[in-house]
């Protein structure tokens, strides 16, 4: 018997496939396991294997043809076999369907017995749906319901798929919706009684609240970060950095008169240098293009009353620790007084959020649009580390990079973090 080869599902998201190449031609003998074709899916070019022996009777699809899932691509069978019926019969593989047939007839007969809907012209009416199983009222995701039941469910916010239909073929009817309500409401009396008691002993907790008006900054934070979180596909990579030498260097620097360098300044500087080396991190998704910025302007998140601001250190990579430190302090001060000018908050190409001073070990940050990445900096921890086979006291800091996957891929983010780590682990390099 001839067998229909249809377009197989070769990837989860595949809806159609393009025949890239036929490895066989009509009249060729094939046996189970042979790769008869290559098919381009939405992801890759995949092999199509046959599971039966026979002769290729017909290649229905040609190279370059796009065939939907389940569409016939070829027919295999005995030489000389008549396949005209299969070609007319559509995409369903008849051999697969065959064993189900008797079962269907049974359920049809059963239905006729208990369903008397009759039309003088068309006869037993419920035959319309009798080829389907008796119980489920779902038909490929569609719930069968009378128009009235559908409307009632919509009005009452009832999910139709959760209602058991009592009508023919599981159709949800008015009585089922009314019954469903009753069921859903039935357990109510109990909680009500409980609530009453609770109300006596304590004031209702839900009623005690204060509505805080949403100010402009809160609105902006809400809008921009929601937009970022829900449109940028975020991914996160964390790296643990040995800060021993950075701590030592900071101590020596701060020992000099009029110098005050913070760890944050060092992280900012390290990021600026690393961004120079990995310009793709210093980029923005603009929809039609990815813009690679030629300047490095790092924004630093500053907590202020009722929110946060992100003042920008321009040309960060061209500034030294001290200069960066001064600028951050001046801008942070202005931020707290809400005296930042718009141009002091605009034009960033990368952002750093540091919660180390609060003892946060590690966290993830939401990308600050239109940046492609944001670095979340944790606290420097005193941890035991193993050096030359001995446990010694160590200084470690975890940083987590959030990246927009539309712009940055995992390996690239990892390379950036590696560079950042080597810069902070050998901080003298940054002075060059």
């Amino acid at each position, binding site marked *: 018997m001839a067998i229909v080869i249809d377009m197989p599902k070769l990837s989860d998201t595949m809806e159609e496939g393009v025949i890239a190449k036929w490895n066989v031609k009509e009249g060729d003998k094939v046996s189970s396991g042979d790769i008869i074709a290559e098919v381009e899916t939405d992801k890759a070019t995949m092999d199509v294997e046959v599971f039966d022996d026979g002769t290729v009777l017909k290649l229905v699809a040609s190279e370059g043809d796009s065939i939907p899932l389940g569409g016939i691509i070829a027919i295999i069978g005995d030489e000389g076999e008549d396949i005209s019926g299969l070609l007319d019969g559509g995409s369903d593989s008849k051999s697969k369907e065959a064993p189900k047939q008797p079962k269907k007839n049974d359920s049809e007969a059963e239905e006729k017995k208990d369903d*008397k809907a*009759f*039309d003088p*012209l068309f006869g037993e*009416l419920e035959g319309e749906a009798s080829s389907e199983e008796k119980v489920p009222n779902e038909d490929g995701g569609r719930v069968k319901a009378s128009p009235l039941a559908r409307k009632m469910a919509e009005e009452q916010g009832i999910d139709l798929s959760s209602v058991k239909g009592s009508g023919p073929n599981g159709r949800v*009817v008015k009585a089922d919706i009314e019954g469903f309500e009753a069921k859903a409401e039935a357990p109510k009396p109990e909680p009500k009684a409980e609530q009453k008691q609770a109300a006596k002993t304590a004031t209702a907790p839900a009623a005690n609240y204060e509505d805080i008006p949403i100010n402009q900054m809160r609105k902006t934070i809400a809008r921009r970060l929601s937009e970022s979180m829900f449109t940028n596909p975020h991914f996160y990579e964390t790296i643990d950095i040995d800060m021993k030498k950075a701590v030592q260097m900071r101590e020596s620097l701060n020992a000099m008169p009029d110098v005050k360098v913070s760890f944050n300044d060092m992280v900012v500087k390290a990021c600026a240098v690393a961004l120079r080396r990995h310009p793709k991190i210093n980029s923005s998704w603009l929809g039609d293009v990815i813009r690679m910025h030629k300047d490095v302007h790092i924004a630093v998140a500053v907590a202020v009353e009722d929110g946060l601001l992100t003042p920008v250190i321009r040309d960060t990579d061209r500034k030294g620790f001290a200069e960066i430190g001064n600028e951050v302090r001046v801008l942070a001060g202005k931020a707290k007084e809400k005296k930042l000018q718009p141009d002091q908050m605009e034009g960033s190409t990368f952002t750093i959020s540091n919660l180390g001073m609060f003892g946060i070990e590690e966290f993830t940050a939401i990308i600050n649009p239109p940046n492609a990445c944001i670095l979340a900096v944790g606290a420097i921890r005193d941890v035991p580390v193993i050096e030359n086979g001995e446990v010694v006291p160590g200084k470690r800091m975890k940083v987590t990079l959030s990246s927009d996957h539309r712009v940055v891929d995992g390996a690239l983010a990892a390379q950036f973090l590696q560079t950042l780590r080597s810069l902070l682990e050998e901080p003298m390099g940054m002075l060059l």
Partner: protein
Amino acid sequence: MSVKQFRDAIREAMVEEMRRDESIIIMGEEVAEYDGAYKVTQGMLEEFGLRRVIDTPISELGFSGIGAGAAMNGLRPIIEFMTFNFAVVGIDQILNNAAKIRYMSGGQVKFPMVFRGPNASAGQLGATHSVAYESLYAHIPGLKVMYPSEPYDAKGMLKTAIRDDDPVIFLESEQMYAMKQEVPDEEYLIPFGVGKIKREGDDVTIVAHGKMYHIAQQAAKELAKDGIEAEVIDPRCMKPFDFKMVIESIKKTNRCVIVDESHPFAGMAAEIGFVIQRDAFDYLDAPVQRVTIPDVPAPFAKNLFDLWLPGPKQVIDAVKAVTYKN
């Protein structure tokens, strides 16, 4: 107010109108000397004379055409068919001349005429004498179609039909002529396109006209014993049709069964069902069902005829299907 037969109610309507308006005449087979095949026109010859109560030869095409011509020339003829099963012989005069010439003449010519007589089956009369024609006439623009089910309705509706300036098909039934009902002696008119509800109910709407209205009423009585309260609507007029009454009823009952003595294909029930699904879609809890004669000519043999003509049982079965009670 007195109890009158259906045939008396029709006669009263005609007599009262003929007394009122001299331009009204009646023509048909046996309407004069024999007092009418079903005694509908009894005594009319005596009162109105040969010029206004006219016996015709057995020639439906001829006297339908004479009637149409008379209407065009200012009379208001009533054409009686011994049955509408015979009217098919003269149907060109009805469907083409009477129905269309007012339209084709740009309204210059009026057709104030009524074609009336019994319709549909009446027992073992064979396939050619048992057809319900309301769907066929209602299909044709230019015709109004009335089909009363009770003497009271018949009188009030026929007077409206006679007074109308367009051709009206007025359908009766041999089996209903002897039906009795209290009919007022004073004048009343029932307008086109207004149905009636004599039995109200919340569970299902049954739409039934003509003879089938009485089948529906019997079924409703039986159903009430099972706790199913049917609302029975007699649309009375096939065209124009009181869809509003049907739709409003379905908004309450959510279910509908149409009982129609026509054949099913493209029949009245099909048209009513279409409008229901369009205008009451969101109110339907079950597909609309219809009870009609089958798509088969009437059999003559009694046992087959009884199977062919719908009775209360078929209506009850259909109601149980739409109320999910089977």
